[in-house]
């Protein structure tokens, strides 16, 4: 069967999850020559409302672009975690911000769950909270192996304003390193 991978980035408005999703889709289209879609869902609130970006990457044209069989689910907020986790496949990779999302035991039994204080790390270790989404992109790339990390970073470069490129590069690399560490802890 043709390659087909579905992701969902969920959180609250203002966290940068829509952009993170767009970067993944752009990496797939521009640097992996695949089909990809990113569909944002948000509310009327500019910040603070539940949001999600559904991303599909495929070898074939994509018609229905909402993720309904999710291979990778990222959540940076408890309410949106609860709201949007429903379409996640058994055995899928789930990444949450450990400072903001409590994963119930029944979910841990179904999914390959990774937890890390993503937003805290962006704020105190990268040095700017706005890099949380790029940190997530780095972690997503390493955890999913859905495409080459170099190609994902090329999409980051394409999107990020030059003045913030260095900071975002730091966030991206830190995200990759953290994901590697988390995988190693699980013996992967």
């Amino acid at each position: 069967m043709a390659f087909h991978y579905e992701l969902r980035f969920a959180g609250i408005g203002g966290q940068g999850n829509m952009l993170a999703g767009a970067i993944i889709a752009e990496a797939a289209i521009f640097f992996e020559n695949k089909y990809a879609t990113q569909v944002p869902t948000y509310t009327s609130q500019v910040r603070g409302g539940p949001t999600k970006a559904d991303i599909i990457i495929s070898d074939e044209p994509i018609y229905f672009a909402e993720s309904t069989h999710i291979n990778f689910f990222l959540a940076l907020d408890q309410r949106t975690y609860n709201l949007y986790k429903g379409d996640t496949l058994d055995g899928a990779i789930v990444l949450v911000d450990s400072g903001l999302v409590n994963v119930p035991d029944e979910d841990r039994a179904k999914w390959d769950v990774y937890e890390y204080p993503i937003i805290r790390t962006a704020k105190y270790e990268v040095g700017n909270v706005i890099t949380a989404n790029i940190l997530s992109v780095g972690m997503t790339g390493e955890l999913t192996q859905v495409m080459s990390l170099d190609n994902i970073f090329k999409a980051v470069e394409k999107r990020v304003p030059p003045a913030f490129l260095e900071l975002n590069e730091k966030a991206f690399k830190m995200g990759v390193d953290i994901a590697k560490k988390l995988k190693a802890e699980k013996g992967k």
Partner: protein
Amino acid sequence: MSKAQIMNGNELVSEAAIAAGCRFYAGYPITPSSEIPEHLSKRMPEVGGVFMQFEDEIASCMAAVGASYAGYKSMTASSGPGISLKQEAIGLACMMELPLVVVNVMRGGPSTGLPTRVSQADVMQARWGTHGDHMIIAVAPETLLETYTETIRAFNMAEKYRTPVYILTDAVLAHLNGRVELPDPSTLEIIDRTQPSVPPEEYNPYDVERFGEVPPLPNKEKFHDYRFHMTGLNKDKTGFPTVNKEAVEADEERMIRKITGNIKDIESFEYYKMDDAQLAIFAYGTNAAAARVAVDEAREAGIKAGMFRPITVWPFPEKQVAEIGKNFDKMIVTEINLGQMLYEVERATKGSIEISTVLQAAGVPIRPQQILDKMKEVL
């Protein structure tokens, strides 16, 4: 081969408008259509066109009608609440017989409804939103590429038949970012309004006896040389009001006939895996993507399903739907509303087929699985 790009439906409508020769955009922003004015506010000045944001939807649509009168290819865009306000100007364009492209990025309603969420609940508004006997053309693209190509076609039909044309997209298509490879501009067929060949003193904007059912209309280069009158009142060939019974009746009938009489040129539809199908699905717009996936999945499960998809949704494809009514026992009508095109399907099939529905007005797309479940239920 053209270059792959990532664009969303709103950006594609905007770029297609420019490729089609649109050089006047007037609007008032509203979610989920706002990326159209955002994009065109940058692009219109680059191509020597005019972008204007007005105080409201009524003024902006009137301005778009005025610009069309002055010879420009013009467009306005909005969503349900704004389209309601534009109805007066759309009716004026119908009566004046001015080309106009109106984009409705459909969201939940009535009233302000669900600003950021999908619906297809304005399809009947497109048909009958403005008052009076009139015919309308509306297209409902399914995919990103089709959003581009149908926008070009919308402008072509508006120019060719001197009529408003709706492009019906929705919140999902508008914000869907995906891979597109746009056609080479040199391969696009671009139609401009026919130009008068008579001297200005002999020109009348509705002189059907001399010019045929769709008389020429000066473009922006010729507009200043041709003085002519237009009004919202029923008119004679000069564009001045008349209440003459025969003249009014002939005019009203011709305005409808110029569209229905050219249906072969205007209609557009797709039969997807219908040849050997036992069960027909009727779907349009983005919801057809869900139906397409459902058809494919049904076939994998041994159910021979097919889809009929109107791309031109108005005028309604009566003949094609009537044929399906005769040739099939069962049909599923699916749309992201509580049943609107359903009435047209029922009217066209005249009780000859058993119709089931997958309807939803919850602000979220109908999923392929819902359509698949219905197929299993009815078979």
